[in-house]
């Protein structure tokens, strides 16, 4: 009954079976996350060994260290969400995604704030960073060149990983993977900022290092604030939105449209929350005057909505005499209208 992935585990999110395409995407996302972790191990080691007393290198190192959190949060969350609902957790374990996201965002925010303070105080105190020689396999080099080489190495792979993860985040509707991909894509700026800082030291501009560190810390803080906002609003049961948190999810109007199109339905409205990967849908339908829907009507109506998308599985359909206003805030003012483009099924 359940399809297996290459690891032999059920490729499910709770009791939601994943279509083949999404299963492939999930496997790829897991592979990419492990690849990210492997790359980060080399980056963290390399930057640590070349670090010396440069503030910018320290900031870049901290950022690499923090970059471990999103892929680990993703892997842990995916592992948790595979679990089927239990009597203790009737809604399943999908919220693991939201929890993972919040933890990652908190770490980014706290470290970002600390590092902004740290590098700003270095600038105010006019700390001149010493960068001397280093022995490397019998050769003596200025360690600034070494730092630049290591930073250049850390610039490229995250961008490629981020670009590969982004479409998967959309397909799997995974906020943590999205946050990770988004940060990866911007990672080259950290490396370039660090390189500019080190070159600045080389040219005798002591402040270049602290300014570069401030820039890097600022980008970490910004990541933290953005992610915190999305994670908190998801845990607060905000309406279902697209994977990047930019727009209302196109499936929501599609559900209402599908239900309203049924001949026995006068009007239909739903509230949809994002559980992490999958949606929890509560739909209210008002039958046309004088019609009492049969069990077959209701079952068919539910089935027609569930088949819209793999994300819709956990759905409750309630026939009502009129739309309950307290459960559907401002529903009257919003016409049922699908703005879903070619992506609408995603």
């Amino acid at each position: 009954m359940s399809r297996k992935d290459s690891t032999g585990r059920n490729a499910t999110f709770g009791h939601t079976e994943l279509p083949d395409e999404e299963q492939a995407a999930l496997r790829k996302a897991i592979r990419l996350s492990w690849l990210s972790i492997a790359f980060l191990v080399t980056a963290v080691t390399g930057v640590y060994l070349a670090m010396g007393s440069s503030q910018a290198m320290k900031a870049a190192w901290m950022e690499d260290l923090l970059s471990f959190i999103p892929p680990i949060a993703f892997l842990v969350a995916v592992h948790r969400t595979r679990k089927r609902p239990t009597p203790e957790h009737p809604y399943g374990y999908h919220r693991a995604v939201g929890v993972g996201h919040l933890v990652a965002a908190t770490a980014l925010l706290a470290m970002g704030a600390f590092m902004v303070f740290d590098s700003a105080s270095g600038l105010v105190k006019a700390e001149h960073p010493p960068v001397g020689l280093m022995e490397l396999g019998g050769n003596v080099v200025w360690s600034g060149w070494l730092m630049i080489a290591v930073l250049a190495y850390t610039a490229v792979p995250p961008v490629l990983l981020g670009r590969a993860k982004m479409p998967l985040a959309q397909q799997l509707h995974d906020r943590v993977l999205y946050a990770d991909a988004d940060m990866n894509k911007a990672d080259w700026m950290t490396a370039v900022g660090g390189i500019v800082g080190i070159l600045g030291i080389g040219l005798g501009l002591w402040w270049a290092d602290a300014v570069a560190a401030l820039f890097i810390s600022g980008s970490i803080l910004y990541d933290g604030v953005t992610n915190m906002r999305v994670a908190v609003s998801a845990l607060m049961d905000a309406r279902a939105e697209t994977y990047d948190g930019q727009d209302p999810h196109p499936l929501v109007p599609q559900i209402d449209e599908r239900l309203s199109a049924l001949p026995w339905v006068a009007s239909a409205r739903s509230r949809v929350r994002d559980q992490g990967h999958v949606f929890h849908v509560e739909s209210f339908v008002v039958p046309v005057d004088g019609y009492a829907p049969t069990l077959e009507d209701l079952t068919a109506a539910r089935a027609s909505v569930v088949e819209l998308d793999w994300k819709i599985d956990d759905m409750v359909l309630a026939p009502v005499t009129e739309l309950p206003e307290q459960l559907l805030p401002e529903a009257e003012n919003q016409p049922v209208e699908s703005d879903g483009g070619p992506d609408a099924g995603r």
Partner: protein
Amino acid sequence: MTRRFTTAVILAVLLLAGCSATIPTDPDGTLDRVSGGTLRVGVSPNPPWTDLPDGPDGDPAGTEVALVEQFAESIDAEVEWVPGGEEDLIGRLERSELDLVIGGLTAKSPWSEKAALTYRYLETTGPEGEKQLQVMAAPMGENAFLVELEHFLLEAHR
């Protein structure tokens, strides 16, 4: 937009790098000043590295004193010895009243926040048989001076 900005920054830095003769350069020009001039060196007694056999007014002695004299010669500088305690000397180094402090310092020195410790030029065994890495203390961020001194120290112990 950001990409164009970054490219501009990189180009500007490379251009600057092209104009400047040496990397690294001193923000406060220590190497330029001491070359052919006076090298002000703080000495904290710590035999056998540094010692003041004839009291604070006499000439200092010790292996690091000898090394510094050779280094000064290599950059054509006169050494002005300033004897004192470590904390006092590091304070003067921070205030740019000294160019170098010696006193058998090791890489574990807590002064690394206040002074640029050189690359460990020598590995020795401490009083309790532990490994010790000998360093000297240069002013913070005067990287051309630091690199010149480190080159000399590493050559001297090849």
